[in-house]
């Protein structure tokens, strides 16, 4: 009997050790755990740094009398991505709060602080954000609403995460009531959380579905008359333009709605289409440093033809975030390998010692390198001879896909562009959406153009 009791005691002890090793980290980081806030009292909140590891995007200044102020030197530029720290916080200020209010400073400096009755210095976060690129994106967006996101093709690090309209996080507390009452979604990080119809940029997905099912683009041909009628529903090309006889490449370059609606009815199974979309990451939650809204793709075997035709050209019920479109571009650029986007490069102590580093991680192989090459070729056509020629003059082999996404019955549309440089070295992928941009795809192309120009350092 006493052995049973001893076994019970032993199991308690084993469980406690297991609990401490296994579960405590999760519980400590739980958003419900108010001890975080208490811990913060003992620590000067760490800084949030740009990708160079020194430029502060957010820092805490301590005045002579000990009052602390959270300062955002770039004002509204990183408002949604970096966030604010009052009222529960937002952006990285909220999601990486736990890193900022912990101190991994050396024992010596901690003791020194204790002796001097000073607070300890919290750890700093080194983000992946590039100030110059973010500034270029913001300048190009101007007063337009929308979002710009840029990723490193080979690592998945996010260089630009800009959302407009924006606000000044330095004055969030003072302006809280005004800001929360505004109805333009000013706090929303449109790049990661804004859901939009993808418009013609989604033809990248449709194209891969076609490629998967038919092996190559070679056998496709279609004669575009400006409208395509099927199942009692009519799809028309932008401005009812008739593109005439087209190959797959020219249909893609021209962003020919009729051709893609036709292929959705004749060349692509619904199951293949859905599988392709989901492989590209739609309907898949992304667990990263910032909250990302999951993009949705609802097409299945019961979807009526009319909706399938619309879905093929990026209308219908499909809803994507700019980040999602950027990731699709990234997968094509990276020979079919989709990487997990991340916003924090590393966490370092106040003295600069690295505590943890984010490793590049693969989400999945969306397509093989051959298919990726085919898609790149098609996207190259868009810039060289199709709807994206406005960016063709940039000298670094830009490829991409334009989009104009109608978002209401009046025909108002958002302007999209997702594109990447194809130099083979340090390439980036940039995606921009300009809400109600008017003038077709031009506004978004212009924004992306500015980012590329800044990145490659040639001005525009």
């Amino acid at each position, binding site marked *: 009997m006493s052995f049973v009791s001893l076994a019970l*005691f032993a199991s308690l002890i084993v469980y406690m050790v297991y609990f401490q090793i296994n579960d405590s980290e999760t519980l400590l980081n739980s958003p419900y755990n108010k001890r975080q806030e208490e811990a913060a009292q003992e620590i000067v909140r760490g800084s949030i740094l740009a990708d160079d590891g020194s430029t502060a995007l957010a820092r805490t200044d301590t005045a002579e009398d000990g009052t602390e102020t959270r300062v955002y030197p770039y004002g509204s530029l990183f408002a949604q991505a970096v966030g604010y720290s009052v009222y529960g916080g937002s952006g990285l200020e909220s999601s990486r709060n736990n890193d900022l209010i912990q101190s991994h400073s050396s024992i010596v400096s901690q003791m020194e602080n*204790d002796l001097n009755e000073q607070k300890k210095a919290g750890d700093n976060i080194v983000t992946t954000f590039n100030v110059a690129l973010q500034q270029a994106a913001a300048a190009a967006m101007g007063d337009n609403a929308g979002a710009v996101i840029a990723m490193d093709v080979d690592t998945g690090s996010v260089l630009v995460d800009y959302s407009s309209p924006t606000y000044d996080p330095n004055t969030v507390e003072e302006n809280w009531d005004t800001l929360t009452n505004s109805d333009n979604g000013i706090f929303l990080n449109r790049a990661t959380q804004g859901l939009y119809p993808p418009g013609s940029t989604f033809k990248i997905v449709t194209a891969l579905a076609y490629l998967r099912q038919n092996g190559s683009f070679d056998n496709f041909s279609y004669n575009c008359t400006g409208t395509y009628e099927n199942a009692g529903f009519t799809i028309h090309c932008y401005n009812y333009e008739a593109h005439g006889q087209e190959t797959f490449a020219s249909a893609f370059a021209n962003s020919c709605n009729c051709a893609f609606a036709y292929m959705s009815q004749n060349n692509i199974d619904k199951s293949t289409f859905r599988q392709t979309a989901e492989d590209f990451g739609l309907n898949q939650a992304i667990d990263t440093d910032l909250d990302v809204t999951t993009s949705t793709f609802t097409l299945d075997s019961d979807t009526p033809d009319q909706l399938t035709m619309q879905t093929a050209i990026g209308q219908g019920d499909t809803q994507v975030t700019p980040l999602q479109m950027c990731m699709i571009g990234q997968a094509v650029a990276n020979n079919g390998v989709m990487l997990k986007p991340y916003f924090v490069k590393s966490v370092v102590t106040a003295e600069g010692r690295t505590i943890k580093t984010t490793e590049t991680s693969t989400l999945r192989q969306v397509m093989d390198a051959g298919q990726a090459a085919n898609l790149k070729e098609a996207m190259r056509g868009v810039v060289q001879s199709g709807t994206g020629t406005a960016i063709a003059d940039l000298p670094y082999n830009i490829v991409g896909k334009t989009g104009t996404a109608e978002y209401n019955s009046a025909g108002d549309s958002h302007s999209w562009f997702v594109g990447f440089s194809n130099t083979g070295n340090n390439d980036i992928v940039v995606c921009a959406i300009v809400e109600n941009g008017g003038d077709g795809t031009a506004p978004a192309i212009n924004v992306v153009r500015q980012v590329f120009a800044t990145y490659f350092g040639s001005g525009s």
Partner: protein
Amino acid sequence: MVKILVQISKYVLLLIMIFFTLETFMVLKRKSDEARRRIMRNQIWLMVLFNTVSYVVMYLQSEEPYMILMLICVIGYILVVQILYRIIYRKASLILLNTMCMILSVGLVMQSRLGIDNARKQFIIAAFATMICFIIPVFIRKVRWVSKLTWLYGIVGILLLGAVLALGRVTGGANLNLNIGGISFQFSEFVKISVVLYMAGMLQERTDFKQVVITTIVVAVHVGILALSADLGAALVYFVAYIVMVYVATRNPGYVALGLGGMAGACIVAYRRFEHVRVRVQVWKDPFSDYEGTGYQIIQALFGVCAGGWFGTGLFNGHPDMIPLAYEDFTFAAICEEFGIIFSICLILLCMGMYLLIVNIALRLDRPFYKLVAIGFGTEYAFQVFLTVGGTTKFIPMTGITLPLVSYGGSSLMCTIAMISIIQGLYIMRKDEDEELEEERRERIRRNRQLQRQPQNREQGFRPQQYRPEQPYRPEQQYRQQQYRPKEQSGQVRQDTGDLERKIEEQTKEDLALRNH
């Protein structure tokens, strides 16, 4: 500067705890009396040091002068109890006493940390209970008929529990306390003692099937009333004590199987029948599913358990105030937070040591009634620790039971001290008997020698009075001798001494076996 002291103090306190725990286990193994005595003295110093460091740190952190007062009181308590035991009950198990004082000290430090008012009350109750319980060992020696009151224990237990249930129904709530003259009594704690006495009384002589069935029915009534009062923790504790005691009395594993089967059945019925049981299981499975409601307590407790890491935050550096009922059901979480996981594991080990000491004593008792009482108390103690620690760390569903000697609660504290005093009484009695037996044996040898020399003086040799002046005067021993005298005069001497001889041999074997264990 204070911060650094607190940081250093937490390692010091941890080291003290580790040493103390190791020493308790060393005594369980160590053979030489001298080594044991040295360890015992050592432990007293460790306790004094533990309390001094704790209260001084708490004073520095809180600047509450009461901390110093508490320190003086607690150290005074430890020293007085130790001295009194050494004077009055020289033969008591000092290691059991030390372990009790240490666990009590940890509890009082934590209570002082959480709220000085509760700590003060807790201390007064502890001191009061200890003083009252001082008479228990004497009582056990003098009053032999306690083992005859079987049905009184059973009836009193049922009446007390029934009263709580009835009044709880009347006032419309699961109120487990009864207020009498401004003092709140939790009867299920007192019944923990009476139910064990009842079972021991029932099973001391007869262990046939009928007897076991009658015992089972009465215990089932106890457990049933508790289940209806929603005091599931206590119900489980009684039930496990019942299974263990029946097994020890009958040595029949069939009863254990039946008992466990019955328990499983009862759990299923309780789960189906009672909403609050389902809620507790649900909360245990996924506390976050109802964070604001039913899961809140356990989640806060878990936050507390992991907040301090291995070494704890140090006293007054954590936030045990965020844990609901930190002074009662979730004291263990508060200890984990400020003293750390390693310290808490030591505390579990210390509780385990306490249990082993009780079992050790139980094994040396040969009267079934006393043996069963000790086993019953030991089981209740161990299982209570298991339920509360397991519940706080979400190892098992929370049963709402407190950690004996540590959690705040007068009834629980009083009853635990009473239980330990009873066990001390049994131990002292056993040692006295051993000594008497030893004495009888020596006497017989001398007598035999005398007989060989002067066979005509045979009758004289049986008079123990002749040898008495050689022994130091001890009241309880005199009592024992008075009791034995009539027997000797009644002419059954030969048979008695024969029995005694066998007993001595058996006991010596048993002792040897124990020590070699």
